[in-house]
């Protein structure tokens, strides 16, 4: 097994979690993870170049792959995938939620109301415990943009489902 594959194997559980958080669905998350790993293996098939920060590289690759997949779903290059909210993604209306806990499903619905650009920042910070600086580097955006997107995401979650969030927090 190559060194790259060993490292990928090591970080795969975290990457999978991020894919799940990003897509909001386990099956889609696993598909996104698979496609992203296929991409990196293909890219570095004949290369001995060491990837300096594989984890960050993979987070970025996963985000970009997800946006590519969203573009395909919309079948248009004109769409700004950063602004897409998950409730409106084509072919995903029939996706079932994985948990039987209603309150968690409601939270997921609230998170699904966030656009891609807000969601990826929230997931990297709240789920992957990345710093603002790391998040900025992964998404290739300024730290100020990270902070403003995070602020916007949190405000929307509080406005969308203030009661449910509070209830779920106590479960």
């Amino acid at each position: 097994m190559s060194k790259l594959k060993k490292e990928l194997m090591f970080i795969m559980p975290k990457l999978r979690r991020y894919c799940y958080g990003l897509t909001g669905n386990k099956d889609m998350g696993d598909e996104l993870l698979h496609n992203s790993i296929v991409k990196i293996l293909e890219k570095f098939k004949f290369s001995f170049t060491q990837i300096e920060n594989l984890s960050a590289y993979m987070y970025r690759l996963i985000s970009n792959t997800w946006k590519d997949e969203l573009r395909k779903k919309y079948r248009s290059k004109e769409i700004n995938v950063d602004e897409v909210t998950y409730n409106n993604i084509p072919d995903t209306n029939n996706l079932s939620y994985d948990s039987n806990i209603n309150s968690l499903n409601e939270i997921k619905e609230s998170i699904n109301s966030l656009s891609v650009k807000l969601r990826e920042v929230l997931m990297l910070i709240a789920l992957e415990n990345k710093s603002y600086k790391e998040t900025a580097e992964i998404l290739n955006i300024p730290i100020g943009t990270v902070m403003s997107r995070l602020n916007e995401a949190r405000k929307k979650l509080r406005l969308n489902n203030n009661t449910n969030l509070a209830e779920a927090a106590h479960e």
Partner: protein
Amino acid sequence: MSKIDDLKLQMYVDGELDAAEIKEVENFINSNMEAKKLVDSYKKINHLVFSTYNNIKSEDLPRKTLDLLIDDKPSFISQLLNYKIKLVPAFAAAAAVMLVAIFTFNVQKDFQNPADPNILLSDKNQNIVLNQLENIIGQSQDNLLGVVSHGDQDIQYEEIKSYSDNKGRECKDFKFSKFQIKEVTVEKGTFCKLANGQWKATKLEFLKGNLPEL
């Protein structure tokens, strides 16, 4: 919240502040209920996001993705090394086929040319035999009959005629048996005595083919 704004509270929740700033924010939220509620709500959001999506970590990793990382295709060199053992019988089989082919070719060649290879003479050996005969004729009388040996072969010769040719030379015709040059059998030969007193083969008759230039 003029000094400590909403963003700073979120930085506090996300662990982005240094020790002095943390102390400053904590003093502030202890004295400001609205700020405390905001901080609590941000913490709850973080906690809920984490607890909602972190549960996948306890599940088995997807098999097909694992296969991508585990089923490492061997490098060209390792492939070669792995196939080395398999190549041995392949080479052995190829060698056996070649041996059979060579054997078959030779058998076929012998079949097409049934003459005993041991009595086939090269041009050089032909001259050696003729020289022997020339010497024998020069040293002997008429009605010669005998055998010239060369290597493993015995070439029988018999004088059938003695005469003078149109140049006035003394000549003798000989009949041969088992005298083969390459792929033809020499049936008859004519030897004539030259002006210097030496006998030379002047004509060879073959069962088939062209006469050699002597």
